[in-house]
């Protein structure tokens, strides 16, 4: 029942209309029945971007070493938070995706990999909206980093792959032990604060900094911050270890799925 990788990808490809259809439907469903419709999809991140750059930028300007212009802190925040949100979105949604679609899994035969794929597509759409607003803002403020912006792509790919791997693995286990979803929420809170997103890494002491570098997200987020703040291309620190982790996570998720797929439908 669980096919080799090549077959899995081929089945998934033949179900691409389904994946895209479901993702599109989810997006629409969120704004169905509202007057402004999908305009809300832009308003929310727009407000956040405004808050972070303008409000916090002015408030925090004098308190963070190394970043001393009004908009610097705002951009710093946006670089970290928006990408972190994309990361957690995939994680949170993957962990419940099997449970949520229990009925489908029990009664309908379709490639199970379609479910995480839908999560991926959905998250991608949301991220594109949010980030395009941010980039538009940067352009407006004359802080557009230029070509290094392309450096975002490999970082994002690695990040979302990592999230998908961890999320799907947890999602499978969550079917049997619903605690996992709760554990993830707590875990993500902690992870957020252990990653220099709201504060620059430089405010940590030496020992703490070493510990912080053990966190794979630290260098990844630093990569984003580097691109958007300084226009610097990311170094291999920012993506290579994370890419390896992502591959391991995806492999683990797949192995877990193979082992438990048979019982999955019985438990839903």
């Amino acid at each position, binding site marked *: *029942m669980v096919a080799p990788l090549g077959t899995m990808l081929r089945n998934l490809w033949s*179900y691409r*209309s*389904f994946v895209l259809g479901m993702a599109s439907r989810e997006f629409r469903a969120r704004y*169905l029945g509202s007057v402004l419709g999908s305009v809300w999809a832009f308003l929310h991140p727009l407000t956040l971007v405004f808050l972070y750059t303008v409000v916090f930028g002015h408030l925090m300007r004098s308190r963070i070493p190394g970043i001393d212009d009004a908009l610097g802190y705002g951009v710093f925040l946006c670089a970290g938070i928006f990408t972190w949100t994309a990361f957690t979105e995939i994680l949170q949604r993957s962990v419940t995706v099997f449970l949520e679609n229990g009925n*489908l899994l*029990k009664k*309908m035969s*379709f490639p199970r990999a379609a479910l995480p794929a839908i999560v991926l597509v959905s998250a991608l759409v949301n991220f594109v909206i949010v980030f395009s607003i941010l980039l538009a803002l940067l352009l407006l403020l004359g802080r557009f980093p230029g070509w290094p912006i392309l450096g975002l792509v490999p970082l994002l790919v690695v990040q979302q792959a990592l999230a998908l791997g961890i999320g799907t693995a947890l999602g499978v286990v969550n079917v049997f032990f619903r605690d996992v979803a709760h554990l993830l929420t707590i875990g993500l809170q902690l992870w957020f604060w252990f990653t220099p997103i709201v504060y620059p890494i430089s405010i940590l002491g030496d020992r703490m900094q070493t510990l912080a570098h053990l966190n794979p997200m630290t260098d990844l987020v630093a990569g984003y911050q580097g691109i958007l703040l300084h226009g610097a291309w990311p170094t291999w620190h920012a993506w290579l270890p994370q890419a390896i982790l992502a591959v391991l996570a995806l492999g683990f998720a797949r192995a877990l799925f193979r082992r438990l797929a*048979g019982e999955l439908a019985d438990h839903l």
Partner: protein
Amino acid sequence: MPRIVARGLGKKYRIYRHPLARLVEWASGDRRVLHHAEWALRGVSFEVADGESVGIIGMNGAGKSTLLRLLTGTTQPSEGSFHVAGRVAALLELGLGMHPEFDGWRNAMLSLQLLGLDDRQVRDALPFVREFSELGSHMDQPVRTYSTGMQVRLAFSVATAVRPDVLIVDEALSVGDAYFQHKSTSRIRAFQEQGTTLLFVTHDPGAVKALCRRALLLDRGTLLRDGPADAVFDYYNAMIARKEEDAHIEQLESGGRTVTRSGSREAEITAVTLHGADGAERATFAVAEPAVLEVRFRPRVAMPSPTVGFVIRDRLGNDVFGTNTFHQGVAHQPCAAGGELVARFALGLSVGPGSYSVTVALHTEHAHVDASFDWWDRALLFEVVPGEVRGFTGVAALPVRASLERGGG
């Protein structure tokens, strides 16, 4: 090359007392076993040839749905193997994946995608969906405004928009009004004629007889019988009758305690049974089959002329037919207290397929209003299924002879 092959299929469910038990078992690498196994299905082997239609019957809990889930791949077998060739469409539940806020078109599209159709196939199938469901302009409305019947029509139209190689149906046909049921059955028949292999699961033997020539009988997870639908169906009948016999006894006991019986009890009905022409006690009959209704009773006091009456009612409680020994001119049988009497009514069950009940009464003279000794509501339930007499609708199987000629004569 057979379409479906199953060898020693088995499905075991692990029942854990507490989720923690499962965790401990996992952690020990399955070394400590903390579950008890329940086999929903075991040792099931059979083959289905290309284009064949097979019914799968059995009582609730026999393992029919489990077998389907295995064959459609939604769950994995614990033992054995199976192989299904070609495109499989399963009607296990109608309306899967439908979102109430979206209109009929969008829901149809998504459900078609869920079946694995690509964009072009989806586009081509949509006009059929609109036509078959007869939803017309309702297709533009959100599904939450649909009545249940409309939702069913949409779901069924989507599920049968494209002919599959193998069609597996799980009791999804018995929904909707009579008109739509007819339509759905015709659609399935059309697929059969075009070569689709059909697996039809139900616990209504009548439906199986209508569509399939072969049947598999499952009971408590094992395959009991595999053969021509008629033979398997007879065996199933016998099983049910045996079960209902126990049910009769229960009913009798509960009858004594509940208010399904009334009367002075100067005489008491002790048994109400239906028998086939061969004398065997049965609960299922074919249309127009001869049957014998037997009512045994025991008077407590001597009585000169007890009258035994019965009325057969349909599922909705409408009187279908009733009479009693008085009206039938049966000679009086006076009897002393304590003796037992048996009243027999030989009937031709010329009624339409369905579920019927028999209410029996014991009284004096011609009507129960004089003195009712015992009145037993729904003393017996029986089922009538399509037999040799078919091709009609309604509760009365009236004898008919039809002809078509040129007018003028």
